């Protein structure tokens, strides 16, 4: 694998970027452009969360903390006017990574549901800090006054077209990086931890360190999503840090699928579409979203991308016997995981 997958991913990334950049040329609509920027921001949140949920088996319910931390840190740094855009960028990601390091060091030792709740608790702590520290964050009004967008390497981020290109490039770079992480030996270590932690320990993997690294990486990439959103909205709002943002990210993964790499992005597109449609027809979007989640959880039982992939893999397996073993292997692995899970142990 190694270099060949790297080259293939690079080609796919370039094609994806070209397609993304081509969309506004074919459909010159400001609404569509804004929609894609939302998908970029929330897509980064969801796909980085999937490094934990799908690949490591850590269901974090507090991932929006790093998303919001990126947005607020970037907004505050830019408003201070003391740092350049580039260093504000780097510092915001570093700040989020540091938060993830502290929270992760406390949380990653814990078992699934404890982990989920504790990450949520830390997110709510961050949320209450934002609400109460009014002099710094603007409290429930959010970070007002706009975020200045001085030119970065001579490109003007204030121009919506330029900003669109900037967001798309950032998005593709981050997703490509994440892909390299998941396909690296480290990524396979994470899968092993997910499937059988005891075996990983037995083979000499430092599980704590691997999980913590995954947690920090995921938090850093989520913060990039937050920065994009802060730049786009020209502000940061406490809603970014509210628990529903984390819930939506988990739902995006569920909707799109956690076993296919780009599943969460599919989920982000679907959820943004749903949100748009639901808010047009009703103000009770919680009710409708809740019912859709319910139908997805009880009816579909897996993400749409997973569903399509399994159907496709099944057809391919039927045609070529050589692939059958592999496909059955993954199915068996999935089956084992379900069978091995005992709710009451």
């Amino acid at each position: 694998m190694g270099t060949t997958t790297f080259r293939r991913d690079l080609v796919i990334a370039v094609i994806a970027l070209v397609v993304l950049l081509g969309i506004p040329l074919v459909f010159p609509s400001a609404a569509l452009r804004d929609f894609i920027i939302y998908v970029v921001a929330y897509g980064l949140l969801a796909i980085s969360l999937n490094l934990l949920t799908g690949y490591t088996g850590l269901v974090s319910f507090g991932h929006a903390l790093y998303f919001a931390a990126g947005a607020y840190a970037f907004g505050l740094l830019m408003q201070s006017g003391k740092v350049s855009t580039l260093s504000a960028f780097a510092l915001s990601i570093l700040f989020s990574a540091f938060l993830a390091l502290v929270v992760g060091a406390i949380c990653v030792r814990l078992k699934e549901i404890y982990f989920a709740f504790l990450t949520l608790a830390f997110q709510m702590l961050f949320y209450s800090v934002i609400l109460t520290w009014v002099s710094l964050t603007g409290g429930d009004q959010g970070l007002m006054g706009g975020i200045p967008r001085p030119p970065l390497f001579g490109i003007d981020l204030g121009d919506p077209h330029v900003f669109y290109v900037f967001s798309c490039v950032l998005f593709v770079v981050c997703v490509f990086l994440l892909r390299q992480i998941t396909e690296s030996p480290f990524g396979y270590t994470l899968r092993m931890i997910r499937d059988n932690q005891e075996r990983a320990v037995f083979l000499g993997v430092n599980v704590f360190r691997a999980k913590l690294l995954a947690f920090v990486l995921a938090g850093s990439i989520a913060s990039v999503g937050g920065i994009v959103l802060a730049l786009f909205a020209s502000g940061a709002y406490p809603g970014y840090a509210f628990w529903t943002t984390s819930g939506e990210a988990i739902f995006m993964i569920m909707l799109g699928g956690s076993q296919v790499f780009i599943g969460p992005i599919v989920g982000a597109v679907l959820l943004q579409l749903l949100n748009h449609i639901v808010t047009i027809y009703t103000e009770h979007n919680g009710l409708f979203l809740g019912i859709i989640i319910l139908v997805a959880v009880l009816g579909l039982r897996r993400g749409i991308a997973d569903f399509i992939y399994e159907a496709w893999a099944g057809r391919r397996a039927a045609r070529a016997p050589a692939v059958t073993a592999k496909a059955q292997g993954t199915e068996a692995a999935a089956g084992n995981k379900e069978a091995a899970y005992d709710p009451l142990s």
Partner: protein
Amino acid sequence: MTQVSSGLLMGMLLFLVASGLSLIFGVLGIVNFAHGSFYMLGAYFAYAGYMATESFLVALAAGTLGMALFGAVFERLFISRIYGRDVLMQLLLCYAFVLILDDIVKIVWGANYLLMRIPPAFALPPLFVGGGAIPVYYAFLIGVSAAVGLLLWFAITKTRFGKTVRAAAINPQMVSALGVNTKLLYTSVFAIGSLLAGAAGALAAPVRSLTPGMGLSILIESFIVTVIGGMGSIVGALVASILIGLTRAFGSIGFPLFVDGLMFTIMALVLILKPSGLFGRQV
């Protein structure tokens, strides 16, 4: 003393919610993320009962029994379908219900703060204990919660039903093989857990303002309580609830932010030093 009583009040409410959460987790292996919404529904049911009949007794019954019934139906219709599925599905299912219940409350009772006055029966001069005033209703609430806690402890440790429940928590297959209807057992445990949340909501309704979304903060606090006290330990839940309640009551005089920080620091310390909680068995 006044601070102590309001700390105890918060602590006892937390204890009711947290013990229900802990009971359901211990036996069913499900963390009911919608437990805070059950607390909220209990409060609104009590409000509706009080508004309809002007009787506080009816309000309490509406909150507790209404939630027990709701919990039983909820378990049969939804929770029973996800036993054995992974944590992600549990969280999503409950997340869906948090959204749905919040919106239903908004549709039925409106998004504004509602206030249910302290029932006239309790409009007595406050009790003076140790040089501080304690409103009678506070004393009543603390007493009732303590009684409920004692009853729960007795039911779990001393009765046949409690023995079966504890056995089912350890080995459900064996319990089922011995002829116990585990389905019914699960439903009743879930109903009892919901009843506890509903009772907390109903008792809190006269002293707290009601608002959709009021369940989330108590959910998180009661989870902190179960982490500190130890999952599955009623004594632990009681001690931790009172600890958190008093911390809140004393800290909120000056430093609300500091209190949140202190709560999380206590939790983090417990997790690092004794991950199973102060009174917990094995995590």
